[in-house]
């Protein structure tokens, strides 16, 4: 895929809505398309978080493996969302597994390149953090709501 096409693909994704064109060009230069089949592992807990994904189509389960219960899905990531933010935070390793539960198409973005660019350009860093922080906070709030076990009633 040429740079212009990748640029156009990224531009239509909600995560990049309104991002300055020069940053879109930069991100497009670090991006590639990827496809995962149902049940295919996208990343594994403990592995280096060398890439992050914007979801074009499909559904991915974020899972943690427990010896007694097997893989436990703690969240699903759907079309239009972003998959993975461990690449932003040292030690840049995944905290969970990610498994496609439907055929899934993503744009994979080289995290190393983006980290380098962010270190050299604080405006880019601000632009991306401004987009990632609400996602992180949203997932923290969602996790808290899940912990509340709102629908449980002692019977």
């Amino acid at each position, binding site marked *: 895929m040429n740079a212009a096409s990748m640029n156009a693909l990224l531009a239509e994704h*909600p995560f990049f809505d309104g991002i300055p064109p020069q940053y879109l060009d930069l991100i497009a230069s670090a991006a590639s398309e990827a496809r995962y089949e149902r049940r295919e592992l996208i990343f594994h807990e403990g592995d280096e978080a060398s890439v992050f994904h914007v979801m074009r189509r499909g*559904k991915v*389960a*974020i899972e943690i493996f427990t010896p007694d*219960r*097997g893989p*436990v*899905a*703690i*969240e*699903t990531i*759907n*079309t*239009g*969302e972003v998959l993975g933010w461990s690449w932003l935070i040292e030690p840049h390793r995944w905290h969970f597994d990610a498994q496609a*539960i*439907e055929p899934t198409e993503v744009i994979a973005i080289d995290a190393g390149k983006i980290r380098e660019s962010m270190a050299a350009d604080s405006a880019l860093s601000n632009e991306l953090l401004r987009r990632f922080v609400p996602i992180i906070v*949203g997932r923290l*709030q*969602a996790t808290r*709501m*899940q912990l*509340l*076990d*709102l*629908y*449980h*009633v*002692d*019977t």
Partner: protein
Amino acid sequence: MSTLEFTKEQMVLADPMLPTWFRVQCVRRETHDTFTLDLACQDGGGRFSFAPGQFNMLYVFGVGEVPISISGDPATKEIVVHTIRAVGAVTRAMRNLKRGDQVGVRGPFGSAWPVKEAVGRDIVIVTGGIGLAPLRPAFYHVLAHRNDYNRVVLLYGARTRDDILYRDELKLWRGELDLEVEVTVDSSVGRWRGNVGVVTKFIPRAEFDPGNTTALICGPEVMMRFTIQALVDRGVETRDIHVSMERNMKCAVGFCGHCQYGSKFICKDGPVFRFSEIEDIFGIREL
């Protein structure tokens, strides 16, 4: 307001404090702790009318009386449907009822979902747990009058896969091409391949026009609080958001004060409220 429709001979039963005898037609297990009761007027002569969102007081003789939302199709007049979670003495006794057993019914009581006011608009229903039961009549109404509405969105959250209410109907509704139906569970192990996470996660990306949307919400209050916030973040006005509140209803006609909520009574002024009308008291913890 909709009421019981009786023959002249039966009119004496229209006293709101006096139960009418209904017989159990069917008891259906929904989940490990919820079940659905189909009730018919004992002598077969009564036709029961209600508006979506209203509730009945159901009386198990010798045990007690509890408020239960009506969860059936408002177009069906012969059978009254309630989905109930067995959490206390009365509801546990109801779970043990058999076909032919008697139940006392007072009602219907309370306010209704604004399904007529919402004609011409998008409908967004957000619900969690057993909160789907009081909203199902509104959804039935919308389905029966599908051309009266624009986009119709149903977002439902349950605790686990095994706690999903009305599973067969949800599958059916998800298959319709002109409905957006999303189901999620808070916790998942094993074979579940659907969504995991809180129901509010769907709101930012659901397809509706915030400026022309009527939102109907029912679930635990914390869930409703986050849902309202997510809808407001999308641009829905609080006057277009409707919530169903729950308090300790006893008399159901605003006499006893058990369900007082600020200056309102849940049984009489609610249970369905326009959120902008209770916004000031919604966050007060002592109420």
